[in-house]
């Protein structure tokens, strides 16, 4: 499996696809830094740590780094995974590799792991770029807690990307055509991966009778991995944020706008985290099972 992992990584890093993705990452980082540069002065007045505000501050019309990551990560995940299996199949390399004395699952495991490593490098690059440049810009060093928060955010972004990659790999196992396995996850991404603000009218439209209840709205919204990731992001990067919990107006009014401690924030996002990991695991497990049972014939 290590051989396959190494080869896949070498493949990714020498491919044009990866170059384009990295370019995208750099442009997004640059834009996000510009956004933070515009907005950080006002944002710094609010309570809470300053450094991680770099990631959530929006400019006048430019979304924040966190939004960029939430949009980019699925694209990266899908781009890395959509041709994992059927690409090899159509180029005729799959049965050549499977006729070597290796277990069949090491092929798909190796590909998945290589994808995660690539994802981690890309997301790590964005965060470090923004963090490093932001440090020069605002001159406020991050506290230990902020670093831990950023790291957990990094891990959750990788898991979020792994979900989309797992989904793309699943379609690459199910369908022989590259176009289909690319369009399917993209379509799913458009339907469930768009921001919750856009998403809510859909729910209102689909379930008009129950949509009055905020609880139901929230529950439906939480089916979307995007929403889960967004929630996790908010809680992790904006310590004041308490999540989309059901609060009455009396509780909200008596609430102090002070930042939560790290363990309290973690407590809030723990379910979101678990669900994201579970979704990823389900995607991967299905592709794994299907792949293990699949006929290898190329024609």
């Amino acid at each position: 499996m290590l051989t396959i992992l190494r080869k896949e990584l070498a493949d990714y890093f020498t491919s044009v696809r990866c170059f384009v993705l990295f370019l995208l990452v750099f442009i997004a980082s640059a834009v996000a830094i510009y956004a933070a540069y515009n907005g950080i002065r006002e944002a710094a007045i609010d309570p809470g740590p300053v450094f991680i505000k770099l990631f959530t501050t929006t400019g006048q019309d430019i979304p924040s780094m966190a939004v960029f990551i939430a949009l980019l990560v699925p694209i990266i995940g899908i781009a890395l995974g959509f041709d994992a299996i059927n690409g090899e199949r159509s180029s005729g390399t799959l049965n050549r590799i499977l006729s070597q004395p290796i277990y069949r699952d090491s092929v798909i495991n190796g590909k998945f792991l290589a994808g995660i490593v690539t994802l981690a490098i890309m997301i790590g690059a964005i965060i470090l770029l923004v963090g490093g440049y932001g440090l020069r810009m605002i001159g406020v060093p991050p506290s230990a807690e902020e670093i831990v928060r950023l790291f957990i955010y990094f891990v959750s972004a990788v898991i979020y990307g792994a979900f989309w990659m797992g989904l793309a790999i699943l379609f690459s196992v199910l369908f022989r055509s590259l176009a289909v396995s690319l369009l399917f996850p993209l379509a799913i991404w458009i339907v469930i991966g768009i921001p919750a603000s856009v998403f809510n009218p859909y729910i209102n439209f689909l379930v008009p009778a129950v949509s009055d209840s905020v609880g139901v709205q929230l529950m439906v919204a939480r089916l979307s991995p995007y929403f889960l990731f967004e929630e996790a992001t908010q809680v992790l990067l904006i310590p004041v944020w308490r999540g989309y919990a059901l609060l009455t107006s009396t509780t909200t009014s008596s609430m102090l706008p002070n930042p939560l401690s790290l363990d309290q924030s973690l407590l809030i996002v723990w379910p979101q985290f678990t669900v994201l990991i579970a979704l990823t695991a389900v995607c991967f497990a299905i592709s794994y099972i299907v792949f293990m049972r699949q006929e290898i014939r190329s024609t």
Partner: protein
Amino acid sequence: MGKKIVVKTEDLTKKYDGVTVVDRLNLEVAENEVFGLLGPNGAGKTTSILMLMGLTEPASGTAKIYGFDSTREPLKVKRLAGYLPEKVGFYDTLTARENLRFIAELNNIGAAESEPLIEQVLKSVGLGEVGNKTVNKFSRGMKQRLGIADVLVKKPKVAFLDEPTAGLDPEGINQIIDLIGNLPKMGTTVVFSSHRLYEVQRVCHSIGILSKGKMVVQGALDEIGRDAMTEGRFRIEVETAEPSPQLIGVIKKIKGVIKVAAEGNVLRITTDADLRAEISKAVVQNGVALIQVKIQEFSLDDIYMKYFHEG
């Protein structure tokens, strides 16, 4: 036969969606021989090879390579056997050498051993000069030869080559066939499938003809020809100036002649022995000018076509 049987299937059967693709295939291949698996497209050649390699599961029956069950012990089989798929593909952005190195690594061949091995294998298929070129610059023939190199890199005891000459020009076909012919000397038993007879005839020691998933003929190349075609009989063609009914009567009386049919100036005589001498004597004695006597040798082509027509 005193030869060791290394590839053996017993009642191997495969069904796709209820359609029997391979039907109770019994196949035996002796060590260090070249076995040609013949048959039209869709006869079950590829499926049989896939089952032998442990890449697809048979519905029933067993396939064994050196005594290892292909379904139950696929890793052991894959260590011993190499497989060249029909549409072989390589990683286009890697060089020929890198492609082979990857396969060597998957076979746990260390770098110290694999480098000289790759060099040697590339040379043996005539790609020594272009080993550092990326595969997307390769022609179809070069890719096919690289495919054989790819099989050889793992030093297999048995090599399964699925239509190794498909889509090649005559020059390319010759190169591949020569390569295949040399493999037994290097200790590799070869099973290769094809629907082209003459290339099989050139290098194979024995053949099997598949038709609709069934093995219709199997055996050593020189033995099966006559048996299959005429049930142990000979066919002699006699061309004369003008055959008379009287002559036919005389020939019919020769011991061993089974049937005489006249077709213009040509008499087709079925016999159970080589009676050319007796027949020509009878023709001359009857005062008929003899133009030529020909014993019909059955090429594999005839056998092959016979089963194709039946199929």
